[in-house]
């Protein structure tokens, strides 16, 4: 192993962090909620893909099923659990999110038991770049993530729905006065974030092929750290944060030891926030007078 390999590995896992961090940041940007249940959406997506593949369905169908399920789950959670609390204190919303997270983990435990399931191999092979071997999983992960992020950027910049998202996240009331339907915009944000989480789930399982009820917890926390590191609420921030965490982790594992990886990730977060409290690309919050 050498530096280039570590970097490629870092970009590989960082892309997955970025996809998940996007969900945290889009939701935070729009409802100012740290959606603690977001990590568990990954778990749900992984189970759906696992069972679909296990039933012999083609990969594309399994991925699509996972996306559809997660989108519905995300939208329903927002409607049922978060929407009624939108006007209450932020802390109630936060605690509800933690509650939903525990609920999802426990339901999964009850339904599927805590025993990990082995996710089947859906991507195989690799190729040589000079004399360096790169696995197909790495290529697919990086390419799929990059394409999704590019599509998301275009979507937010150019479509009416994307404009509505930007307006609501900057000033919800003013957005309403422009004729933007806030409820629909929030639903759409949860839908997109959860859809991205489903794809992240499948990509994650391609590299770490174990599906179990709490798999989303630690991964979710790290993606959340990526979100905060990049700048909470910022879409490009999620990408920068995800890649930074991924690369830092890969370098630590490569040159130090795996046991240090998490400690380094957390330290990176603390140091960054000490230097720049709003994160790498975060905007300073404009105080409204």
């Amino acid at each position: 192993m050498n530096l280039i390999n570590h970097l490629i590995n870092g970009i590989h896992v960082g892309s997955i962090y970025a996809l998940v961090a996007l969900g945290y940041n889009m939701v935070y940007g729009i409802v100012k909620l740290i959606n603690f249940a977001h990590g568990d959406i990954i778990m749900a997506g992984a189970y759906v893909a696992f069972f679909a593949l296990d039933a012999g369905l083609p990969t594309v169908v399994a991925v699509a099923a996972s996306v559809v399920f997660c989108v519905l789950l995300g939208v329903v959670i927002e409607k049922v659990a978060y929407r009624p609390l939108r006007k209450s204190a932020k802390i109630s919303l936060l605690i509800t999110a933690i509650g939903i997270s525990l609920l999802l983990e426990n339901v999964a435990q009850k339904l599927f038991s805590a025993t990990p399931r082995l996710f089947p191999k859906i991507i195989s092979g690799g190729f040589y770049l000079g004399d360096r071997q790169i696995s197909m999983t790495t290529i697919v992960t990086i390419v799929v993530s990059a394409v999704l992020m590019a599509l998301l950027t275009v979507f937010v910049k150019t479509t009416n729905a994307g404009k509505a998202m930007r307006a609501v996240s900057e000033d919800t009331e003013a957005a309403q006065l422009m004729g933007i339907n806030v409820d629909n915009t929030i639903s759409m944000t949860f839908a997109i974030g959860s859809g991205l989480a489903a794809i992240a789930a499948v990509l994650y399982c391609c590299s770490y092929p174990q599906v179990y009820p709490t798999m989303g917890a630690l991964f979710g926390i790290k993606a959340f750290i990526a979100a905060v590191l990049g700048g909470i609420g910022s879409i490009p921030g999620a990408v920068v944060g995800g890649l930074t965490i991924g690369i830092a982790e890969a370098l630590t594992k490569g040159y130090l030891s795996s046991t240090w990886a998490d400690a380094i990730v957390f330290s990176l977060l603390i140091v960054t926030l000490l230097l720049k409290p709003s994160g790498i690309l975060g905007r300073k919050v404009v105080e409204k007078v």
Partner: protein
Amino acid sequence: MLNVTDINVYYGSIHALHDMTFHVNDGEIVSLIGANGAGKSTTLKTISGLLRSRTGDIEFDGHSISRTEPDVIVRQGLTHVPEGRRIFLSMTVEENLDMGAFTVREGKKQALDDVYDRFPRLAERRSQIAGTLSGGEQQMLAMGRALMIRPKMMMLDEPSMGLAPILVSQIMDIIVELNKAGTTILLVEQNARLALKISHRSYVIESGRIVLSDTAENLLNNDQVKKAYLGG
């Protein structure tokens, strides 16, 4: 054009508006005047659907809108320039105007040209980030943004706030021009003299109640109003 009947609005247990009834006729400039905390902004927010009244009804252009969502009310041609302007500070001038036209499907380009004609300053600064505009320019942008839907009626919440006197009279002139061009206006002002000068009729609000209503001319000569709102 607008009929507000017997509305009562609460913030939690605070009773902010009491049995408020007033109307605005087609083509009028009507103002609501009153001191800090009287309930002027609350009234406008209730009309545009951001707040709900527990009682009574609000009728706009022949339809009841007291249970209508804010985005639908905008589509019916009622626009609200909120207190403090509330433009999108991180977006450019033109992006702000584009947000104003969110519900507009046809004639967007024409609406944009019209706004730039009315506010040449905005045209010069079309790609400037709105947060870096001066206060007067921000107020023009807030008004321009609201005009993108070619509203039947426009509600303005303290458009003079924080502006130099010369800018204030410019803004007031623009309101009069808009009205002459056919837009009905509901104006909220703490600066009563200013509001009465350009209004046809006016309502005086105190602690969430309408305590007086008359033509602007009569109110300007009313002793009570002179003493309380016009500085003697």
